[in-house]
């Protein structure tokens, strides 16, 4: 094949791959077809990779094989062994790797174009190409380190509390200005590989500083945003390499991440900049006025009491939160739900969009425990249901059910859409202690007349409930 024919064949395959990617995402839109959709996307990837390998530009395969082998082994091991509760950090780290890949590819291409200029094959480095390559490296490097910090926070290696450096806004601003200034200089004076490396390193540093001040419960926003960045970085590299499939796939991922980011910030009633500036919940527990937590009267119940409440009700809604994930209580909850259903009690689950540490986190955990997805309700479906429900059982959720979001304009979470569990006839809250939630504010729900507090580790508490319920009759 002549070179031109080869290029056309490759691009033909790229078009097929692009169509399959888009179909794959389309099929991801329904639980019935989602698995097929993912398989289609994987097939598209395989086609794109295979097509690339016939390129005449490629003269050596051993290095490619080495890289693919290393990456495949790591990828397979991680994907097989990760626990479902650890899915947010897994997505974060994969995402970071993608971003890092984009940064390196753009850097290598930038260096290659510079070399072409120095041997006289090219007159000069095109300014648009230089600018996009730098953009891609900056965004990719920032995605890599930001994702690593997010991984560290989710894995518990880095503190989940917001870390607030003194004068961090000034430092961030200076760093941002430095990155932009060096980038602009590089566009006009491209033959400076050291400066290119410097700008990449500064961007990596920026990524760390950007995510450090963001607290654990804001991670759904961060992960969504980084997801979108990795897509945009790939698309930008596609501009540099004039490669359409990179542009298409990267743009679709970028759009996906941005949409999820918007859904998450809306569910928190906060702006993106508010989340990214960080520090939410950094002040700790003693900031609120009024009686301190623990001084107000509340009702504490035992497993036996709770089993009675549940066993003689007609309808129960479970409200899971991050505490369920931490305690790995999903299987126990499913068992409890099964027992209740055997008694003819209707069981549903109400899922807040930001419950957990990533979009859809609770849904995946409950799916793992074999809970049918048609028992899960989102925010809009749940709230009218609570009024008709006997018992709402809150498991490890706090801020997403705090009525202060509706009633207290002074509250930091005021205006956030919440699950109105307090409109159920009775509320049982499973919780470790009376400690405050991520936002550092007390929860009035715990002191309501129709609320019972059932203290303990979520998994053990639910297992005890199962035991008690078995004896009930």
């Amino acid at each position, binding site marked *: 094949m002549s070179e031109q024919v080869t290029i056309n064949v490759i691009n033909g395959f790229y078009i097929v791959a692009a169509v399959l990617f*888009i179909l794959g995402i389309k099929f991801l839109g329904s639980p019935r077809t989602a698995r097929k959709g993912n398989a289609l996307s994987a097939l598209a990837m395989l086609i794109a990779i295979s097509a690339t390998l016939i390129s005449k530009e490629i003269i050596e395969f051993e290095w*490619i094989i080495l890289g693919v082998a290393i990456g495949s082994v790591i*990828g397979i091991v991680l994907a097989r062994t990760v626990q479902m509760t650890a899915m947010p950090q897994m997505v974060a780290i994969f995402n970071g790797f993608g971003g890092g890949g984009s940064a390196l590819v753009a850097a*290598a291409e930038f260096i290659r174009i510079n070399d072409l200029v120095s041997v006289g094959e090219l007159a000069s480095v095109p300014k648009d190409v230089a600018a996009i390559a730098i953009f891609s490296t900056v965004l990719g490097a920032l995605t890599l380190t930001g994702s690593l910090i997010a991984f560290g926070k989710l894995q518990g290696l880095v503190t989940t509390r917001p870390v607030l450096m003194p004068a961090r806004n000034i430092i961030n601003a200076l760093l941002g200005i430095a990155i932009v200034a060096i980038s602009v200089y590089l566009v006009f004076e491209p033959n400076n590989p050291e400066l290119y490396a410097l700008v990449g390193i500064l961007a990596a540093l920026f990524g760390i500083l950007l995510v450090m001040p963001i607290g654990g419960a804001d991670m759904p926003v961060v992960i969504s945003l980084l997801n979108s960045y990795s897509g945009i*970085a790939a698309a930008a590299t596609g501009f540099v390499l004039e490669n359409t499939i990179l542009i298409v796939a990267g743009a679709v991922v970028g759009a996906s991440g941005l949409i999820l980011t918007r859904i998450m910030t809306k569910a928190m009633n906060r702006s993106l900049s508010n989340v990214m500036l960080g520090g939410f919940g950094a002040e700790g527990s003693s900031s609120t006025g009024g009686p301190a937590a623990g001084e107000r009267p509340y009702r504490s119940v035992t497993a036996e009491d709770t089993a009675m409440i549940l066993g003689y009700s007609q309808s129960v809604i479970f409200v899971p939160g991050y505490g369920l994930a931490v305690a790995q209580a999903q299987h126990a909850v499913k068992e409890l739900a099964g027992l209740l259903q055997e008694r003819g009690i209707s069981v549903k689950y109400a*899922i807040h969009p930001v419950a957990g540490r990533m979009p859809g986190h609770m849904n995946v955990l409950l799916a793992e425990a074999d809970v049918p997805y048609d028992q899960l309700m989102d925010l809009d479906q749940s709230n009218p249901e609570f009024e008709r429900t006997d018992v709402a059982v809150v498991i490890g959720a706090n801020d997403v059910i705090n009525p202060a979001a509706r009633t207290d304009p002074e509250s930091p979470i005021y205006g956030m859409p919440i699950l109105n569990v307090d409109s159920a006839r009775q509320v049982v809250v499973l919780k470790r202690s009376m400690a405050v939630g991520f936002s550092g504010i007390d929860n009035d729900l715990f002191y309501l007349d129709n609320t019972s507090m059932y203290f303990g580790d979520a998994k053990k508490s639910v297992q005890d409930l199962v035991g008690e319920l078995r004896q009930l009759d």
Partner: protein
Amino acid sequence: MKGLQVADPLLISVLIFVIAIFVGYELITKVPPTLHTPLMSGSNAISGIIVIGAIVIAGQGHSSLSIVLGVIAVALATVNVVGGFLVTDRMLRMFRPRERPGSKKPDSESPK
């Protein structure tokens, strides 16, 4: 290219980019919240498409620096692709419409 009024390739790329954003937006807004995690990890795997750029860089044998950068990029992106698709499949396998896997009568056990 004969017979074609060739526009600036960058402009064509921008056009493709914009259209892809719109298509992506239309498709993804239809994904229900239940599937948001698989959507995220699946689209994440797709962003590993950068692997093909990395393959070209690693395979060109341009300079030892570009080979080193290329191999690292191939490895990183491959983790993203392979891990991402596998873990998404693992998650999606768990999503079931009704009670119990083998149950042939879909409505038998779920209370209405």
